[in-house]
C-alpha cells in the first residue's frame, strides 16, 4: 500500500522539522542568541519578548538558547541509543536466528527478561550503577532498547532464512557469512529502519524523563527534561518555561513516530512482492 497524500504531507513536514532541529543543534553556538548557562539575574521570569524570544527562566537564562542546546542532548542521545541498541540487538538477533535452537532459546530468554522490566525503572537502575550523566544515560538506553531489535531481527531472520533465494545462494556455494550480510541483512533493513525511528523517539522521551527525575543530564547542562523540571515550580508565574521545551519534545517525538509509520507503510509489502 502506498501511503496517501495526507500521510506524505505529514511525512514531509516531520522530516522538515527534524532537519531544522538537526541543523540548529549542529550550529547551536552560531545561532543561539545567548550562552545556555549564562545567568541574567535582573531578567528572571521575563515573558517572551524582543530581547528573549521565548522568555527567560528562573535564573534569567534565555529559553530559546536552552532549547537549542537541549536539542543537542536529545538528538545525541537518540543517535547513540539507536546505534548501541542496533549493534547489540543486531548481533544477538542474528545469532539467535541463525544459530542452533538452544542458543536461540537462551538469548531470547535473556532478552525477554530485560523486556520484562519497565523502561524507566530499568534505566534508573542502570544509571544509578554507572553514575549520572549523558554518557551513562545513552549506554543505559542502548542496552534497554536492544531487546526490541534483537527480537525483531531474530524473527525477520527466521522468516527470511527459509526463503528460496537463501536456498539458491547456498546452492551457489555462498559462504554463510556472505549469506548473512548480502542476503539476510539487506532484506530485513526496511523493518529495522522503522524500528530505529520508533526507538529514537522513545530514547528522546526517556532521556527527558530521566533528566526530569534528576538522574539524567545534570544541571547546568541544557536538556528539555531538565528545563521541564525547573519549570515545574513556576507553572503559573512563567508558563513559557514549560510550554516551549514541552512543545519541542512533543513535536520531536511525534515527528519520529510519523516518519516510522510512513516508512513502515511504504516498505510493506516487501519490495520484492511489489510486482
Amino acid at each position, binding site marked *: 500500500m502506498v501511503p496517501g497524500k495526507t500521510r506524505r504531507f505529514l511525512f514531509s513536514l516531520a522530516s522538515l522539522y527534524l532537519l531544522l532541529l538537526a541543523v540548529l543543534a549542529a550550529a547551536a553556538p552560531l545561532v543561539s542568541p545567548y550562552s545556555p548557562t549564562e545567568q541574567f539575574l535582573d531578567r528572571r521570569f521575563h515573558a517572551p519578548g524582543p530581547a528573549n524570544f521565548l522568555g527567560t527562566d528562573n535564573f534569567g537564562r534565555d529559553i530559546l538558547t536552552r532549547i537549542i542546546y537541549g536539542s543537542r542532548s536529545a538528538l545525541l542521545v537518540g543517535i547513540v541509543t539507536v546505534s548501541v541498541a542496533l549493534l547489540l540487538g543486531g548481533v544477538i538477533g542474528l545469532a539467535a536466528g541463525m544459530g542452533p535452537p538452544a542458543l536461540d532459546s537462551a538469548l531470547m530468554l535473556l532478552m525477554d527478561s530485560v523486556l520484562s522490566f519497565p523502561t524507566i525503572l530499568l534505566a534508573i537502575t542502570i544509571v544509578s550503577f554507572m553514575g549520572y550523566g549523558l554518557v551513562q544515560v545513552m549506554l543505559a538506553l542502548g542496552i534497554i532498547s536492544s531487546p526490541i531489535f534483537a527480537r525483531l531481527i531474530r524473527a525477520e531472520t527466521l522468516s527470511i532464512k527459509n*526463503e*528460496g*533465494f537463501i*536456498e*539458491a*545462494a*547456498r*546452492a*551457489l*556455494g*555462498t*559462504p554463510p557469512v*556472505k549469506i548473512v550480510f*548480502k*542476503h539476510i541483512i*539487506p*532484506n530485513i*533493513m526496511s523493518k529495522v529502519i522503522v524500528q530505529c525511528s520508533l526507538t529514537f523517539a522513545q530514547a528522546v522521551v526517556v532521556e527527558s524523563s530521566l533528566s526530569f527525575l534528576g538522574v539524567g543530564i545534570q544541571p547546568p547542562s541544557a536538556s528539555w527534561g531538565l528545563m521541564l523540571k525547573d519549570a515545574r515550580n513556576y507553572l503559573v508565574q512563567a508558563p513559557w518555561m514549560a510550554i516551549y521545551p514541552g512543545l519541542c519534545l512533543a513535536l520531536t517525538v511525534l515527528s519520529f513516530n510519523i516518519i516510522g509509520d510512513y516508512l513502515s507503510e511504504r516498505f510493506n509489502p*516487501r*519490495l*520484492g*512482492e*511489489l*510486482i
Partner: protein
Amino acid sequence: MMNTAEPLIEIENLRVQFTQKGQKAFALRGIDISFYKDEIHGLVGESGSGKTVTAMSIMGLLSKPAAKLLSGSIRYEGKELLSLSEDELRRYRGNKIAMVFQEPAKYLNPAFTVGEQIREVVRLHMGLNRTQADARAVELLDLVGLGEDGRVLGAYPHELSSGMKQRAMIAIAISCDPDFLIADEPTTSLDVTLQLQILRLLKRLKNMKRMGMLFISHDLSVIKEIADRVSVIYAGKIVESASMARLFWHPMHPYTRLLLMSIPDARRRGKRLAAIAGQVLDAREDPQGCVFAPRCPMAKERCFRESPKLIAHEQGHMSACHFAEEAWNL
C-alpha cells in the same frame, strides 16, 4: 543416444530418511542413477516421490538434522561428495554443480539487481575483479536472451516478467560454467508458451556448454521436449531408466506404462484418460517387496515378497520389475 563414457555423477543405493516429530519417513529408498556429460537426464515422478530430495542430495543441501543419510554414495568424476566437508562442498556448488529452481520469483534476492547477483557468484568462484565480472554479467545475459534489453542488468527482480526472471536465474546458475546443471521443475510455474522458450534455452545451453543436466519434472510431456534419457522415480526408487525413445515406445515398467497412458493425446480424443488406481505408498511404510506392487495391475505374489532390483536390459534400458518384458502389454 547412449553414453558409454565414464559418468559425470554416479549415485548408488542412496537412502535418505526424514524424521519429523518422531515420525520417520523414507524419502529415498535406494536410488541408483548416473548422469553423463552433454546429456539431459529427465527425472519424472509424482510429487513426494523424491525428485527434489535427489537433487538436494547431489547439492549437499539436505536440511540436517531432519534428513538422515542411511546409506549410499554420490560420486562426482569419481570423487565421493558425501564425505566432503561443508567448505569443500561449497567449492562445488555454483561452480561445478549449479541449480535452477521452480519459482524464479522466490529464488532471486529482491534486494539486489540481476547484475549484482551474477557478479557476486562469478567473483566468488572465478575470482574476477569488478570490471571482468561486469563483462561476464553482460555476456551471460546475452546468452540467455536478455542481452538486447539493456535494462535487465540494472533491474531488480520485481521489475522483470516471470519468463525474464527464469532466464535471469538460469544466467546466474550457469555463470561459472558448471559441468552439471540441476533444473528442478524450471518451467512448472510458467505458462505454456514460456515453458517452450525456457526448454529451448536450456537445450541450447547444454549443447553449447556440453554440460550434463538433470531435468526434474512431474510432467512427462515436458520431459519429452527436452530429455535425452529419462528415469522414472516412484516412492523414492528409480523404477525405470532408458533413452527417451525407448521409454516412450517400449516401457519396461508397469508404472511407466500407466503414466504414458495418462498423458492426454489428440488421437485418443473423447476417451477417458487412464488413472492409476490406489494411492502412492505411504512414506512411513517400508515394504519388503516392490514399492509399486500395491497399485500394480500385474502384481503377483513374488512382487510383494521380493523387491526387484534395477536391472539393465538391452540398449542400456534399466527396469526394476520382475516382469519387465511383460509391462508394455499392459
